[in-house]
């Protein structure tokens, strides 16, 4: 598996977007908690800094748009795989316009842009888990079957399997890739259930990294030249137990990143960036 996924996690670029000042009040959320905007922005700066300076990615920073309170979560606006970018149609109507700026930026990068023309389709990037060999798409409140179909149509090389997501906002609210063939998965029952489904649906074998806290199971994996496996994960302060699990990844370069504020509006580590490998264009 690892061999087959040799190129997995290799990225050269990252697309991020600033935090709108409207976020604390208007951003969609499942719970109600006060968001400290300045702290959120500070954390976001650190996040971007890690990508840019620590990992050496070329980071494209889009300015925040205050009319789009959730715009910081760029992941939902596009799914990039190889040199193709599928511009999504977010399930939340208030977020549909977020795709515009993202689309433009990705287009400027030279990616092949695919749009969703179907008005009935909804797709949030947060529901799309790419394992390197295939896609899993969570059918959630934000993503429907049609959206998944379009994703499958866009990335024809890969199997696209759907998994139901009932108790969480997104599929990646409780899972993510933590390495080639390694799925970080929350320990909650719904999360484990989803993992089972994914394992059943897949032709490939995945290792799993069970993370005590579901939300902490969302981490960012990159394969950076000279650094090898890199995982951005939630800090021990936020999730001490989960951090311990990550720390067992001996071969990984671990970078704890705090996102306490954006997490209050259901943000996760993967949500705030779109990772792109421009070298993949020639395969």
């Amino acid at each position: 598996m690892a061999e087959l996924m040799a190129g997995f996690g290799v990225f050269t670029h990252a697309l991020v977007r600033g935090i709108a000042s409207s976020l604390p009040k208007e951003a969609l959320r499942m719970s109600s908690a006060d968001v400290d905007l300045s702290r959120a922005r500070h954390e976001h700066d650190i996040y971007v800094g890690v990508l840019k300076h620590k990992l050496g990615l070329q980071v494209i920073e889009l300015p925040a748009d205050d009319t789009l309170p959730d715009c910081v979560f760029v992941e939902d606006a596009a799914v990039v795989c190889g040199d193709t970018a599928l511009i999504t149609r977010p399930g939340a109507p208030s977020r549909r316009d977020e795709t515009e700026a993202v689309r433009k930026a990705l287009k400027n990068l030279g990616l092949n842009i695919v749009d969703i023309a179907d008005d009935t389709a909804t797709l949030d990037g947060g529901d799309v888990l790419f394992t390197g060999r295939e896609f899993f798409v969570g059918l959630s409140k934000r993503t429907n079957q049609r959206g998944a179909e379009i994703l499958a149509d866009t990335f024809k090389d890969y199997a696209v399997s759907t998994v139901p997501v009932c108790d969480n906002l997104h599929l990646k609210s409780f899972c993510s890739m933590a390495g080639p063939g390694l799925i970080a998965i929350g320990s909650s029952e719904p999360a484990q259930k989803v993992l089972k489904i994914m394992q059943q649906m897949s032709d490939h074998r995945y290792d799993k990294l069970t993370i005590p806290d579901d939300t902490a199971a969302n981490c960012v994996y990159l394969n950076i030249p000279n650094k090898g496996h890199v995982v951005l994960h939630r800090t021990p302060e936020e999730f001490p137990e989960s951090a311990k699990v990550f720390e067992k990844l001996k071969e990984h370069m671990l970078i704890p990143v705090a996102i306490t504020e954006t997490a209050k509006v259901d943000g996760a580590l993967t949500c705030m960036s779109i990772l792109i490998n421009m070298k993949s264009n020639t395969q």
Partner: protein
Amino acid sequence: MTTETGLETEVKKELKQTEEEPAAPEQKTQVQDEAAQQQQVDPKQEHKGAEKTEERSNNKETLQSATAEQPSGEQNTDTPPSPKPAIPSAQTSPGVSKKGKEQAAGKGISRFLPPWLKKQKSQSQVEPKESLGREDPVKEEGYVQEKSEEEGRKIEVGGEDGVDKPAEDRRSLPQDSKADEKEEKHSINSAKTEPAKEETRKDTLEKDADLEEEEDKNGAGEEIQKMIKEEAKVQKPELKAEKSPEKPPKKMKTVVCKVMMLEGTEFPFEVEKRAKGQVLFNKVCENLNLLEKDYFGLTYRSNNDQKNWLDPAKEIKRQIRSSPWQFAFSVKFYPPDPSQLTEDITRYYLCLQLRQDIASGCLPCSFVTHALLGSYSLQAELGDYDPEEHRVDYISNFQFAPTQTKELEEKVIELHKTHRGLTPAQADNQFLENAKKLSMYGVDLHHAKDSEGVDIMLGVCASGLLVYKDKLRINRFAWPKILKVSYKRSNFYIKVRPGETEQFESMIGFKLPNHRAAKRLWKVCVEHHTFFRLASPEQPPKAKFLTLGSKFRYSGRTQAQTRQASTLIDRPAPYFKRTSSNRVSRSLDGAPVVSVTNHSLVDSLAAEINGKGDAADKDNAEEAGTPFRTQMELSPESKSKSLRIKGENIYVRHSNLMLEDLDKTQEEVLKHHASICELKRSFMESTPEPRPSQWEKRLATTLPPMTLGSLEEEITTILLSKESFSSYLTGSFTITAKRAAEGAGAKTPTESLSLSPSTWSTEKTQTRTDGPQPDARNITETSDEKQKAEMGEEVEVVIEETVIEEIRRTAKLKNSPDMTKSPAAAIPSGEGEEEKALKEQASKANTSSDSHSESEDEADYHPQLVKVAVDQIREESEENDEELGKESQVPMEHPAEGILLPPPPEVQGVADEEKQECKAHGEDEALSSPAEKKTEQEAEKTEELKVNGEVSRSVSEVNTQVIYCSEPPVVKTEIVTISDTFAGQKTDISTTEVPIVHTETKTITYEASQLDGSEDGEPGILMSAQTITAESLCTTTTTHITKSVKGGLSETRIEKRIVITGDADIDHDQALAQAIKEAKEQHPDMSVTRVVVHKETELTEEGED
């Protein structure tokens, strides 16, 4: 037989002679084969008597003239060993006498052949024979027969081989290995060609009549072919050398099969009309110089334009039916890791297939992947990018994607430039490494609907079954997760192992567009599972693979075996040209895209020729039937042979495949199965089936040939001659019992019980019989709807029970001392108990009913199924169960027939559906009652019968002596009036048949009185279950024995299916009646619960499939 033996000796002598001649041992060429063939054939003909001599001379003349007619230019142009010249000699050979053989050889190509070549040829022929020695004597006999036959055929076809081989051989001259393999192939072929015997006979008979005509035709066809060939030669000499199957004229009933190769060109291959798929496939592979052929197969398009796999084990003619003899060579099993293939040539063909898949859109890929794969294709075929040579449009002849854009082409070129230095083989490797990652790589898609009627796709692949909705994968069932796959009518079912948290298996059903689609899917599943998942096709029980009662199974090698075999390939990488034609990908409809070379011209010419060949073929076909029969009548000796041949045709297919059954409680059952499987295998082995080549044999562990062949024949004879049935059966079943005993070892009482004859059904019958037979009609008529409903249920449960079960039981008892209860004691007592139990049940109404029988609709049914069905019921019973609702239609149909049964309302809908289905099938298959006098009986019937059995659409539960007859609406030919005592001993049925009817299908069910009509379907505990299938020449017997314990009562049910196949000379009714009668006499205390008869009569030769 005498004839054959004589033949053999003669042939051997001849061969020896030839052998002694100094020949370079390594070089075995087809030419040799030809010579040998001639020799062998000749002796046979000599038997025919003096008149033949004249014929021969005639033939010779014609042949000669044909030779003379050949464009001299061609001969001149050709290098001596060139294939074409070979043709004439090939033609000649059949008619040539022994003495003349040399001369004949001198006339044809052989003239141009160096002497050593000729000799070698004969040698090669000899060797296969020697290999025979290892085989079972029985086989050998057949072999010889076949061989001579095949040779006869080969002579005609010889041109083809002769053409190809010399070139090939020269390529591989120094290697023994290759030659060996070839020989092995030959032997395989011959083993499989049994049907050919008939042909020969027929042929000889007909010879006077048609030979000359045929020759003429052939001559004409030949010429055309030559022209074509020449064209081809000029255009692409190399290609031609590699694959130029020439079809020579026919002395036998041969057919030209047009095979679309992966390069996109069509080649004609000539095979005997009755040849099995394997023969053609071997020819094609030989032509392709392909050794790792297990990954490949031939497809044909059925009338509904569905792609079907040609079953190597079955006659081609039967499979394609009325479709043209047109095939496509394709990859059947896509190796998940192509790098593990041994030979580059194999990878090359896989690449060709994938390019085709990609260009046709069957294998979806992204733009980038299209470009990348395309660039590797270019590299493989054109080599390094050369700016001089490769102008902008150099790739326009290639198709890289379903819709190819300029952008894509540019990208391809761009990538092509980066592959500098890759050899063709490396480029192919890269191609495959990328292609194999595609999610749809190797996925065989089938349209279906889920239980809610939603359109889905089912994809069968190496790892299991995938379920797609639109383009999304919505489920996946890995092979280890699937316990069983089955189909019933247009429904396809899989039984899935319970998950960690689940307690029961679940049965998941899908609706396919039609019955054939369901069957096709099922077969593909069986094959893929076997190929990818199993170590060997026939599996010991430990491996947990059980094919129950289904005669269909994957007969080739598994991936494991073929890999192992490949390690023995020891030839230098064969040279093959990556032809430019490869670039042309054909559109799906087969319209060839013309590439650099003028294939179109060649194709059209070929088509013409083929057309002619077809016409000739038709003629042959018309003539075919009668001579054959005549032959049978002529010599009693030959009768058995021809019967045997028919035996081949028997193909029982139960739709169920038991995959890995891990249920612990079923261990015993599994043991039984093991023995059964073995038994079955032995049965099957005794019938001529395609056998693995020697090459395979080295690797694949096959059972030593069994001596059971005699068993089959015994049974056959019994049925045919109506001799004392019991004794024969006993004898035959002794073997069975022994085997079972062996397999089981020391068995628990329950197991032995299962073996014991007493079935609850039987007992039931007894009970019924004890009392005077109730007037079935009255009962039925008076019966309320409830009863009907019950009947419907019952139908599902009981499939077919015939007397034979009882017989069998006796045999077993006698033969299996292992059983806890001694046969004598055990059985009677058991019966008594059971009877009691039955009576009790009867009083209770339904107490003892099978779990299946109860449920009327599927909803009820499923849960039960989950609990009980899995293990209890073997294929058919299970099928029936699944079909519950549908089966109930039967009552519906009765009214139409004049039997008054108010159908239960619920049932009606289903019935209608069924009827429709019947219509659909009716065209091809006909169910008929055994009771009817059979008018037309053809060998094919058997197959059909079996098929119907699976389908078992019209099994109805009726009271004793009531026969329900359901006829497919399409063909109404018979009116059956029913009144009879049970068991078909005497059935008064007035039959009116319209001979013109294409096919007929009839089902008649005899039911004993209704004990089980009122069963509550409480599922009992399954104690054991087993299925035994026995095949004989014209009969196939499948026995399901289910033993279950319910509420302290043990029930044993034996369901037996007997398929009688035969021509008009067999009175099926009588055979059946006899069997039943015998059984009854033997066991007066037993009775038959139900007899369901499916009769199929075909006027035209059709295979099911």
